[in-house]
């Protein structure tokens, strides 16, 4: 399993968009860069589409549901999780892409 890298956003100096962001999940080759990741409630995860096709990252997990819509290649979006618990994150377009975000208190 590959470890999540530090966000490229910080490296690129786009500091406004990176407030609170400390971890990035990438999507190259129709795969999440991590199957599972643990973060604290209120922390932010960045979803970076470093793949060659659009993705549609989302979750229907209660308390942490979200939908990024169609995210084109090169796009990066932050998601802040507000409730503790396991969040099942998928790509709506690509059903083989599945991961769990474990949100702790």
């Amino acid at each position: 399993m590959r470890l999540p890298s530090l966000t490229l956003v910080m490296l690129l100096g786009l500091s406004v968009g990176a407030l609170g962001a400390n971890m990035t999940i990438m999507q190259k080759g129709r795969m999440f860069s991590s199957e599972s990741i643990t973060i604290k409630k209120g922390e932010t995860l960045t979803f970076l589409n470093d793949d060659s096709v659009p993705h549609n990252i989302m979750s229907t997990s209660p308390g942490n549901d979200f939908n990024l819509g169609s995210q084109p290649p090169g796009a990066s979006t932050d998601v802040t999780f507000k409730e503790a618990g396991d969040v099942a994150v998928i790509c709506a377009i690509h059903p083989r892409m599945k991961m769990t975000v474990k949100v702790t208190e």
Partner: protein
Amino acid sequence: MRKPSPGQLVATAIAITVFGVVGFVSGTYGSALVGETRHLGVVGKADSSVDSLKARYRRPTMIPFPKDNLYTPQKLALGKKLYFDTRISVSSAQSCASCHSPAFGWADGLAVGVGFGMAQLGRHSPTIINAAWGEIFMWDGRLANLEEQALGPIQSPGEMNMPIDQLMERLNTIPEYKPLFAAAFPGEAMSAKTLAKAIATYERTVVSQRAPFDDWIEGNEKAISEEAKRGFVLFNTKAECASCHEGWNFTNDGFQDIGLPSEDVGRGKYVPGVVKMQHAFKTPGLREISRRGPYMHDGSLATLEAVVDHYDKGGVERASRSDLMKPLGLTVQDKADLVAFLKTLTSELDPTAMPVLPR
């Protein structure tokens, strides 16, 4: 419907002010806080040399079976009989093979399927070829695995219309089925679960055979024409087919609205708040494709030439249409090359022997 939280509105406002883009916030999904979307332009270019492209399409050497339904020859033998047995439909006139027939590339050769009472169904009967590698089942992905899929059409009122309890009662009255179930599932009762496992086991053994394309991939330069070789490169580059039809089975099982002018919302019924899932259908594999027309989820295109034309034009423009769909600017020669390539994915399929059914 959930309203966006103040935090979401602030984040969106920042995005518009600073970056001029809007982070997508659905009206339906919104408990987690979604920030702005930034466009970093960090995507690397994939290696598109022919050798590196070829490496992505090598046939697997083994059929995958799930841990909770491993292969046995006894399951296969039982599953094959059930697959071809018309008595699993309420009318005793339809079997799985009625719509997924080896004679038509494991589909039915019709635009849309025919169900109970000879009524036309809404969608094209998909092939079962290479279903063992499927991630999710049905055009709209409503069933999670092949065992669930096996029971779906049997019970569907519009298809075989057979209540599962009635089916098990009927099979119990056919004496020769009992020892077959006992051999396949020792110590287990005849049930919907074991029936589904047997049918799924048989279906997993329906695998596309070696096609000229496979010989070319493995080094025989004479296996396919120069036209088809150019088509393979186009398939992976200018025509962008491989964005969805990828890997040896030519699908990633993804859902895309490819702009066919159909009212059917497809995957959208099961993922209602997601724009890109409206009118989206599962990407089919392309093995044995020459035997599987008419094409598309609605059977609306009769030939591979018509399919390539559709992708070249880009289909109906609407919010749900895949961002990958756009006019491609293919030349007449490009289109002919693509069709020539697609035809190399069809094998000389061996005939399938019909089983003798239990009485």
